[in-house]
């Protein structure tokens, strides 16, 4: 079980995403998950072993490390990636539910069902409309919120995105204010800025996708409204024709009645 399994799960959702959604997924896997696994994990691999404090007092190093790094960058990123990928599962579940309904229809032998066999149902690509549109839009909205929350948490916890070389620590049992040195601060700063930049790109992609979906929705609505406005003219013409015919029939009836009575 690793990030590969996540790739399999989200790959299925990819079929039913918009083009921007597919780009987002590619950016997520190549520039975030792959970079995390292949490079970032190694940069932060020796973070506590090489965190050195200018004291021989046992325990001072542990306490200072814990004070300055309540949760490691690498773990925060891993959590961010997991939380940001989760809303896509909502879409996957909705698609699976629709497929299940279609399979039920097919099994009952419903004539409305336009598929020839189960394989077609399995391979079918659903368009983002109706209730699936709402699920998809909510998933993008949730993603945006998670990204923003994690970026803010990062900024708040580490006072910006720079990794300092030296930290001054005076937590007990350190005897005085002690200098503690972080390992590979420049490399860590570079990777931090890279991950923040890619997060921002992902946020922009999500915003663009949201705008695209909303625009599509309003355009479709106005089209429908336009169509329904045209139809009443047609109906009016037909109604007047029918009214004329009815009048003719009632006139002819009256004439025959009068004819009989006379």
């Amino acid at each position: 079980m690793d990030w590969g399994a996540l790739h399999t799960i989200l790959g299925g959702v990819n079929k039913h995403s918009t083009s921007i959604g597919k780009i987002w997924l590619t950016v997520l896997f190549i520039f975030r998950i792959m970079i995390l696994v292949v490079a970032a994990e190694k940069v932060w691999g020796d973070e506590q072993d090489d965190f050195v404090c200018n004291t021989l007092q046992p325990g001072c190093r542990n306490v200072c490390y814990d004070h300055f790094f309540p949760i490691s960058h690498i773990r925060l990123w891993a959590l961010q990636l997991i939380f940001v990928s989760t809303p896509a599962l909502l879409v996957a579940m909705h698609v699976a539910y629709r497929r299940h309904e279609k399979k039920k229809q097919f099994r009952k032998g419903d004539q409305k069902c336009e598929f020839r066999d189960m394989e077609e149902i399995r391979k079918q690509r659903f368009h983002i409309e109706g209730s699936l549109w709402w699920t998809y839009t909510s998933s993008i909205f949730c993603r945006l919120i998670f990204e923003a929350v994690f970026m803010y948490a990062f900024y708040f916890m580490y006072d910006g995105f720079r990794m300092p070389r030296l930290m001054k620590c005076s937590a007990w049992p350190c005897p005085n204010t002690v200098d503690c040195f972080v390992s590979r601060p420049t490399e860590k700063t570079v990777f931090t800025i890279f991950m923040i930049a890619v997060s921002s790109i992902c946020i922009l992609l999500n915003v663009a996708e949201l705008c695209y979906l909303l625009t599509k929705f309003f355009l479709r609505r106005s089209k429908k409204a336009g169509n329904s406005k045209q139809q009443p003219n047609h109906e009016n013409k037909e109604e007047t024709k029918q009214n004329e015919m009815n009048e003719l029939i009632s006139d002819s009836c009256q004439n025959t009645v009068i004819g009989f009575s006379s």
Partner: protein
Amino acid sequence: MSWAFLRDLLSGVNKYSTGIGRIWVAVVFMFRLLVYVAAAENIWKHEHDEFECNIKQPGCENVCFDHYFPVSHIRLWALQLIMVSTPSLLVVFHVAYRENREKHHNQKLYKNSGKIDGGLLCTYLISLILKTGLETVFLVLFYKLYNGFKIPHLVKCDIKPCPNTVDCYISKPTEKMIFLYFLVATSCLCIILNLGELSYLIFKYSVKCYLKRHVKKQQ
């Protein structure tokens, strides 16, 4: 043999689950298994090496570590994940038994061998009760072993061969505590999902039974 085996097992179970069951599988995959493998395992990786006592006496650190961490948090977490996923195997075995029976008799005995009714419903309910029970047992175990869900910075140890009361420092206590709370939160969520599924199934099938009887009476 790795966590991939558990993943494949749970994917198999997914086929025969209700909607809530599938949400439970998704929560276990994403928020428990994936977090464990991708993040939590590395935090506890060097816990023994980084456990430092304010003493040079050989053996003191080992003895103190063993006293305060009889079973490491991460091992308990792994055991919990395995135990909690296992009851779902009962359902898989029951479905396999049904299909075997059909093959043996060479005729269709069940309308749909994967549908949750009759004996399979009982098996499913038992698996849900077992899952919930095991989750609760592990949560209580965590609470009792570690005096709540807190991890202190410092523990005081005076076991032989430590000469006096000695200060021992635990590495990354804050990070460990954050992930421990995460574990507890996801366990509670899974318990709620299991209880929800249990109530839903019991309600659904009691209504079905009642309607059947009602129809029979009318006839």
